[in-house]
């Protein structure tokens, strides 16, 4: 038995040594906070710490689920996330199909490079740019006014704000999907198209009967993976664009945690909401990874 362990260690020690820095840092900074979850069941007081704060059972959870402001964030989170997935996928697929129709490799590459740029811009800077563009005197409203319309309050109108989030997110991130879908299209067997041409199929027909069906598995895969993260509706984006006047439609779970938990110092409440989100998310993400593995053979590890 011992010799077996020794044998194993002799085989592994170098790998373990190599992995040590990453393991230690991950243990401290990713597993460390999990200990703090006990705050969700305490009336946490920073002065008393984890050991000294009184236990309150499920009281924090009862409290948050009786708060209309919190329940609204759940609804908003789902709505914003779902719409982002729908419009984001649509934009990526359509644009990838359009790029695929361009046969010259030079321009195709340049276009692809350009639409990927907004992905790399932080939401802080993006929010700055967007407040300029979408403001009452911004470019878009100048155009609206020029066409004889009334300026739209993109960032402060309750009804409009969620759609501002959805479309600016679509605009910022569709380049990533485009890269993935385009790569898949490049992998389609050219013989399929050749035989379709012999059968007299035009480009529309080829797109409809060959390209799209070949894309569907990867579209489903990307959607399933995105559904796993449905409870994260984009903290950086929302936090940097919203204001109290749009809380009823724009406040999401993550921004609620930040405001209630950290800015107003209700640590226990923030932890309870975070734990609730984390638990539901872990079920959703595992399910999505499992489904992705089962039906598309997708494996992270």
């Amino acid at each position, binding site marked *: 038995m011992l010799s077996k362990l020794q044998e194993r260690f002799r085989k592994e020690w170098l790998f373990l040594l190599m992995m040590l820095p990453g393991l230690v*840092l991950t243990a401290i900074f990713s597993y460390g906070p999990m200990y703090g979850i006990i705050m969700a069941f305490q009336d946490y007081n920073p002065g008393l710490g984890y050991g000294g704060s009184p236990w309150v059972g499920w009281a924090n959870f009862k409290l948050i689920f009786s708060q209309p402001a919190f329940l609204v964030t759940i609804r908003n989170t789902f709505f914003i996330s779902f719409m982002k997935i729908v419009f984001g996928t649509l934009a990526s697929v359509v644009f990838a199909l359009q790029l695929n129709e361009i046969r010259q490799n030079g321009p195709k590459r340049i276009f692809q490079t350009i639409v990927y740029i*907004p992905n790399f811009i932080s939401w802080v*800077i993006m929010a700055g740019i967007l407040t300029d563009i979408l403001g009452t005197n911004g470019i878009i409203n100048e155009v609206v006014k020029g066409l004889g319309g009334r300026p739209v309050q993109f960032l402060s109108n309750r009804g409009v704000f969620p759609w501002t989030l959805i479309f600016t997110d679509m605009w910022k991130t569709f380049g990533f999907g485009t*890269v993935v879908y385009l790569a898949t299209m490049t992998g389609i067997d050219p013989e399929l198209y050749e035989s379709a041409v012999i059968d007299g199929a035009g480009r529309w027909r080829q797109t409809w009967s060959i390209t799209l069906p070949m894309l569907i598995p990867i579209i489903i895969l990307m959607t399933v993976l995105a559904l796993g993260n449905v409870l994260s509706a984009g903290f950086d984006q929302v936090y940097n664009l919203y204001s109290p006047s749009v809380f009823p439609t724009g406040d999401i779970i993550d921004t609620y945690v930040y405001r209630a938990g950290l800015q107003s110092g209700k640590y226990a409440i923030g932890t309870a909401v975070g734990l609730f989100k984390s638990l539901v998310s872990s079920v959703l993400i595992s399910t999505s990874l499992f489904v992705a593995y089962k039906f598309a053979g997708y494996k992270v590890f």
Partner: protein
Amino acid sequence: MQFRSRGQKIFNVINYILVTLVCLSCLLPIVNTLAISFSAPSFVSAGQVYFWPKGFTTQSYEFAMSGGKFVRSFLIAIERCVLGVAINLFCMITTAYPLSKDTKKFPDRNFFMGFYVFTMLFGGGLVPWYILMYNLGLLNSIWALVLPLSVPVSNMAILMNFMRSLPKEMEEAASIDGAGNFRILWSILLPVLTPSLATVGLFAFVYHWNDWLSGALFINNPTKYPLQTYLQTLLTNMRDLLRQSGSDYYTLLQRMNEQTGRASQLFLGLVPILVVYPFVQKYFTTGLVMGSVKG
């Protein structure tokens, strides 16, 4: 294509136009910000600046560079990126290599993989994270910004899958020649890994450059803010100004100056990304696609 009909030519033209319009929509907002940053404040507040500066002035840039706050936070952000990317790359490579082995060579591989995958599924949340940093005494330290997330799991997986996809013979030949694991990793694997290293390196750089939240959480002293956190406070001030009614002359003047001043700082904050991206871009599709999405 032998079916080059008239309809297809028209389609091609329309397609080109649409694609160009979409690409313009991605670039013009940046151009607009650039134009605002070089314009006189009065034209900006009148909504007259589109894609070319009006009343050209470099005042806002001079102000940004002389203010101290901007330059200081810019330098802190660079320091953070150098440290953060170095730590990220080191930890990702040293984690991905052992995990790319099968269980015959590394019997406990699946346990350690599980250790990392679990962090993708479940976390303590924002508040416990903050309390942890507080307890570790890392508040107001740059280490609070660069040590967490040292192994971004999905990027590590890109490297790992790439290492797995390499032909086994490469390593075997080297180990017959007497090369150890470290040697194999250093002189045989790393050179072939350039595309995926460039990809995950870019992701790490972008994360560290763009992240404002950890700065806002863990740094209480505004003189130690990294750039994005500093920009975020600018933005918040701006929004407060915009919410006040514009009748007050002083507010109006302040708002005008802030808008051009802010635009110049936003643009300068973008420059590093715009500079780095084209260099790594050529590796990008190969690195990303080969590692993550396999057929």
